[in-house]
């Protein structure tokens, strides 16, 4: 169903594992963007939980055209495989001068799967400017075990992404990422269309893994975000190593011996 071209590289996958999202600016053609607002405003038919992608979005439908944009299709295949199911989809609209921002939250309930993840697509059919208050995204928050809007107390975190983007931008996000719709202080309606995808195959080397030995992978996985506390930031790297092991099927992968050292359990008695 999804294309096998435009697959992500291992370095791009490592970046997703670290940041919790992939951003693709202006990747959707203008012909589709021009249709989008009318289609999204008219409302989209509900999709039952767990519907196979071809059944969720019939050929020729707007959503089908969106997920078949080559760059989008290639990235989705890299992340969730060839035949994902659709969990739900929804059109988010922020009205002009809407007074409230969403609290920072993760969608659904705590999801602690160590070897699988859902992907949420966010599509912006129009340009999002700073005063339109685009989506707030916290890089590197997706592996934290927090429940929905319990993070609402955090108004601002150092290094947060206050999204501004050109029309036709698509974000693909790990299900656990902290995000929220910011207050729209402009006179323009803001649209965002979201689709959640569930994998149906093991998420192991679904991308173009020709560059698995690239040293940039370890560099990406070692990224420290400015909002991390000193101590907990180290645990984030530890947890990324474990996720990378699951995604590559390589139980020996490590960065500076982090996981190997603390999982070393000699079974032979000491000679001391």
């Amino acid at each position: 169903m999804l294309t096998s071209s435009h697959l992500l590289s291992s370095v791009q996958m490592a970046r997703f594992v670290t940041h919790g999202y992939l951003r693709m600016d202006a990747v959707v053609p203008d012909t589709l963007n021009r249709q989008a607002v009318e289609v999204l405003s008219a409302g989209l038919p509900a999709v039952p939980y767990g519907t196979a992608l071809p059944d969720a979005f019939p050929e020729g439908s707007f959503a089908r055209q969106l997920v078949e944009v080559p760059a989008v299709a290639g990235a989705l295949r890299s992340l969730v495989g060839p035949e994902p199911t659709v969990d739900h989809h929804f059109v988010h609209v922020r009205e002009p001068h809407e007074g409230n921002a969403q609290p920072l939250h993760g969608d659904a309930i705590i999801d602690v799967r160590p070897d699988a993840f859902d992907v949420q697509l966010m599509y912006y059919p129009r340009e999002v400017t700073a005063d339109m208050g685009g989506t707030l995204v916290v890089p590197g928050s997706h592996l934290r075990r927090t429940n929905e809007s319990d993070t609402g107390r955090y108004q601002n975190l150092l290094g947060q992404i206050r999204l501004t983007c050109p029309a036709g931008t698509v974000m693909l996000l790990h299900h656990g990422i902290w995000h929220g719709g910011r207050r729209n202080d402009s006179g323009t309606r803001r649209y965002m269309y979201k689709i959640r995808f569930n994998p149906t195959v093991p998420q192991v080397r679904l991308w173009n893994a020709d560059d698995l030995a690239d040293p940039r992978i370890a560099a990406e996985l070692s990224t420290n975000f400015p909002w991390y506390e000193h101590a907990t930031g180290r645990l984030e790297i530890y947890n990324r190593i474990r996720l990378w092991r699951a995604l590559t099927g390589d139980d020996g992968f490590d960065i500076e011996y982090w996981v190997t050292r603390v999982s070393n359990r000699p079974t032979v008695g000491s000679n001391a």
Partner: protein
Amino acid sequence: MRQQVLVLYLTTSALDSAVVGWARYDGTGQASPTTGDSDEPPYPTGLAALLDGWRLFQAAQLIPPYPGHEYDTSYLKHEFFFEKLIPRT
């Protein structure tokens, strides 16, 4: 009197360590701070807030991880609540 509340999240449990997150609530009704409204922290450290007249009234306890959950990450740990009292107008 009306209370203004400032919450700072610091990089360690020390009050003079760097701010990594922040939130504000204004009991005077003169401002309406909200999620995602600024990229720059109001103070570089918790101590800097004290020097500017904020009064600390709560700091997070240090709680050891539950056995088996030593590598889990969750909410920010180093949370400090400050207040300023503003005369009612």
